[in-house]
Structure formats: C-alpha cells, structure tokens
C-alpha cells in the first residue's frame, strides 16, 4: 500500500453483518476494518461465501451493516437517510455487478446515460457525447445503439463498466467483474478498470477469485469467514 496523507475515499470500522432469520441466521461479516484511498486499486479475495459480495454491497450503500461504521469521503453513511445514500450511489459510487445488471429495454448508450439522467448535471447532447466517449474508451464505439441482448457477455460487462463510470464516481466497486469472461476479455476489462481508475483518480475495489488479477492490484485483502486475514 502506497503511503499517502490524503483522506481515504472509503473507510470502515468494525463492520458486522448477519443474514437470515432466527435459527437460519448466520454471521457473514465479523468486524471488518479497512480504508481505500484515491487512485488505489484494491482487491478482496477469498473463498465463496466468505462475505466478499456482502461487504461490497455495504460499501455500495445497497445494504446496511448490523454494527460498525462506514465513511465515504469522510462522511458517515451507514446510518444516513435512504435519500442521501441513494444520492451518494448516483453521484459518488460506480458499481459493476457480476452479472452485468443492465436494463434490457435500453440500448448500450442509453444504459450508460441512465445514471447521468438521474444526476441531471448535463444537457441531453452532453450526456450522449459522454456516454459515447465512455463506450468508445472501452472499445464499443460501433455498438453504442445496440440492444443489450445483441451484445456478448464481455461487451455487456464493458457497458456495465461504462455505466459505473458515467457520473465520474470517486469509488468504483466491482463484484467479480471478470467472473464470466474468457481470459482475453478479462485482461481487457481489468486493464480498463485499472487505467480508468488511475486516470480519473478514483478508488477501485474489486472482488475476485482470480489470483493473477488480484496480484496486480495495489493491495489485496484476503478474506475468510467474514474477516480479513491480515487484520
């Protein structure tokens, strides 16, 4: 981890999360502490079911911890109001899901424009130009107006990355972004995530099983049974 005096983009302390009810309840996260700074690319690695995705959802403000605190840009967000957290998701967080999670009723460029439309910072033409540029950056220049189901798995994942970057987030979270991709496409997607993070100064946190990819990150958090191994 590179030493820096800049405040972290993301920080959490003693985060706990359980899922299920009554006798089916199981502890997924058991006291997570971590921080990520700007331009850092970090990975969370670990066996299936160790709590990687659950932690990512908490950082993506899609879920709330049972205990502990999460700070985004030094603002405590774990207990914040739903409307505030929703605005943060739109303006400060980009999320790439394992299964793309694109809206099939829209074209590639429209999928990228949807978060921009919610933010409402740009005019329609500006949004179109930015979405085109983002898709161009990840090699989908000729497929911007294709419906989602007319794109391959790798192309869909790249559209999802472009969408995650749409509002220029300070935190980019990716859950197994290369999990369903072949080696070559995985390489391309990772390189793009890495380069885009470095170029835009965002913090990137990705969950992966791929040791090759995690070894290329600035830092890798090894996770087991809801805890970081190096904690």
């Amino acid at each position, binding site marked *: 981890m590179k030493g820096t005096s800049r405040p972290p983009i993301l920080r959490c302390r003693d985060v706990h999360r359980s899922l299920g009810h009554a006798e089916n309840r199981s502890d997924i996260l058991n006291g997570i502490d971590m921080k990520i700074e700007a331009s850092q690319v970090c990975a969370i690695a670990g066996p299936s079911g160790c709590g990687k995705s659950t932690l990512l*959802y908490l950082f993506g403000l899609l879920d709330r911890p049972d205990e502990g605190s999460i700070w985004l840009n030094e603002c405590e967000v774990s207990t914040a109001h739903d409307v505030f957290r929703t605005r943060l998701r739109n303006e400060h967080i980009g*999320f790439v899901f394992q299964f793309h999670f694109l809206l099939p009723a829209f074209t590639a460029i429209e999928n990228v424009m949807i978060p921009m439309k919610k933010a409402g910072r740009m005019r329609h033409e500006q949004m179109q130009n930015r979405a085109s540029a983002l898709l161009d950056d990840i090699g989908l220049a000729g497929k911007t107006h294709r419906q989602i189901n007319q794109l391959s798995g790798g192309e869909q994942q790249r559209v999802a990355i472009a969408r995650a970057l749409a509002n220029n987030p300070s935190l980019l979270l990716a859950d197994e972004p290369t999990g369903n991709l072949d080696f070559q496409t995985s390489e391309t997607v990772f390189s793009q995530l890495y380069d885009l993070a470095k170029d835009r100064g965002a913090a990137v946190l990705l969950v992966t099983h791929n040791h090759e990819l995690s070894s290329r990150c600035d830092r890798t958090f090894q996770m087991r049974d809801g805890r970081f191994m190096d904690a």
Partner: protein
Amino acid sequence: METKLWISLRFILEKRKSFLMSLTGTVFGVTFFIVTQAQTAGFERFFIETIIGTNGALRIQDKYQDTIRSLSADSQNSDSGFNISMRRGKRYISGIQYPKRVAEAIREFRNVTAVSEVVTGNVEINTGQKKHGGEIYGINLQDHLEVSRLASQIVFGSLNDFRNDAAGVLIGRRLAERLLTEVGDSLALTAADQSRRFKISAIYETGVSDIDKVRLFLHQPGARSLLKRPFGASFLQVNLADIDRAPQDAEHMSSVIGHLTVSWQEREKTWLEAFKFLRISAAITVSTIILISGLGMFNTLAIIVMEKRREIAILRSIGYTREDVSSIFLLQGLLILVLGIILGWLCAAGLTFAISRIPIHIRGVFSTDYFPVYWSAAHYIAAAAVAFIVVLTASYLPARKAARFEPAEIIRGTAI
C-alpha cells in the same frame, strides 16, 4: 419527470401484451359507462320532453280551502306564529272558478312564460260506424301552442285548418286508428245530454299512448257549449323558462293563489323514479365492470412489478430513489388511464352515435323511431372520474410495493 416517463414508456413497450390488456379493460369500462348513461338519460330526457310538451311544466287545478283539520295539522307543525298550508286535510273545489284572474296572477311569476286555460270533460264519440269514449280539451289554440308542442305533434292534416274551423277537432293517432277515421271525416261528440258534430282537422301524436287514444282538442267555445260549462276552467297549463324550478314555483303559486298546483316532477314522479333507478342501476353495473377490469389491471401491474424486480434493483443501485421507482410504475398506470380515457371517450362517442341511428319502434310511455340518446359532458367526466379512481388505485399498490424492494436483497437473490 421526463426521465421517469422515458423509463416508464420503455418498460411498457417491453410488456406490450400486459399493457394492451390493461388498456383494453379501461377503454371498455369508460366506453360502456358513457354509453349506458347516454341511453338511460336519453330515454329519460325524451320522456320528459314528451310529457312536458304535452301536459306542460305546471298545472294549476282545483281550488282548496283550509278545514279545521288542516289548520290544526298546520299549527302542530309550526313553532312560529305563521301557519303554512298543507295539502292534507283540505277541502278541494273542482276546477278554477276565475281562470282569467288566476292566469293574470300566475303571469306575475318571473319563471312563467305562458299560461293556457283548458276546459275538459268526458264525451262519447260516434263516427256512425264506431263508438268510443274520449276526453275533450277545450283550448284557446294560440295560448295552448305556447305551453305545449302540439304544433310539432301534428302527423296528418293541418293546424291551420283547425285554427280556421270553429267546428274542427284534433284527435290522437291511436284514437283515429281505433275509430277508423282520417282527416276530413266528421264525428259526433255527445256530452251532458247533447250531441254536436265536429270535423277532423288534423291528427296528432304525442307518443304517449294513454293520451293519443283518448284526447281530442276542440276550440274552447265549442267545448264549453258541449259540456255546458260557460264559465271557469278545469285547469291552467303553465310553461316555465326553467323547468327544474317547477316544484318550488308550484309550492309558491299554490300558497299565493290557493289552488292545487302540481309540477311535472310531482305529476310524473313514478316514471322519474323508475328512470333514476335504471340510471343508478346501469352506473353500478358498469362501475362493477370497471372495478373488475381494475382488479385485472392491478394483477397485471403487480406481476409486472414482480417481473421487474431486477430492473428496480438496478435503478436503485445507480441512484434512483424509492419515489422515482414508485413514480415510474405509477406513470405506467397514468399512461393507461390517460390513453384509456381518451380512447374510451372516442369509442363512447362513436358507439353513442351509432346507437342513436338504430331504428326502433317504441309506442307506449313515449313514441320514438330511433334510440333516444343524451349527449352530456357530465357522463364523460363521471366515467373519467371512476376510471381515475380505479386505475390509480390499481397502479398505486404495485408502485408502492416496487418502491419497498431492497436492492441488496434482490441482487443477492438474483446472484444465487
């Protein structure tokens, strides 16, 4: 709103079948609501026009005098020093003794536009071949034309022939058919032990068979002579500028002139109640249909929301609020509502017009050769209001459910 509408439209286009089903239900509901109201109100209006055009908006009849019983009843009901006359327990004196004076007093009422003095009596009609009972109406033609639609009810012959012939008679179509007579034929009328001959100047048809089979119009002098009633009148038929005010005017006139005054609403109460019942019954039936289609729509939208859980989670994860998600699904309902109302209105207008052209032959309470329909903006507004309540309720519940979904739960569920 523009973005939410855009997303809403795309979701609709993705689920065209479900959307069309919901839209069809709304269109049918709105259409049938309006059409049934147009029909029932059409019959009611037609009946009212016929009956007012024949028997007038108001009739001033017998004179009444308070009796000890009626005065005591009035005193019991009054806390003040005033006694307001009540109809029950009064003594009635048949007819109007001084019709000219009463007519003058009635004309002072602002709502009154015309008054016609009528002398009535039962007669026996003899054509030489057939005999039949009848009721003569002795009228001053010009006065009576101003309180009735007699001029437009002439189906054979000419009103001018009647005007110019002191021994002329106007007879109802059903009566003419029964007597096998036609215009130009003469007939003898017998009453009060005397008989006189009259010539049929014209045949009228009010459409009300109870009238058309018994009533004959004579010039008043002829009628008075036949009935041996040189003075007075049986009743005054009154026309009003605003017929809806007839009950209030009747009550007021009755207290001022001391004669029984009956409004058309009171006179035709039985029929009006029947029409009202029919109209409410039709509205309830069609509202039930709209409600059922609303339930179908609720079902469809609820299924769409369940099927769109993944999309809802995506929208929430990229920054769309619960209100945004709820609005997207409410907008779907709103689109169905707006389109349903517009298309329903158009279909209803077309269907109402088509129904008004259907030839039917009704002879009874009134007579018509085409389906009477009544065009009223109120029907269209009421149908839109019912659709508004049902469709938005059907949309609101699924929309609220959509807003409640937790994105992490859906994503976790989808990922497993």
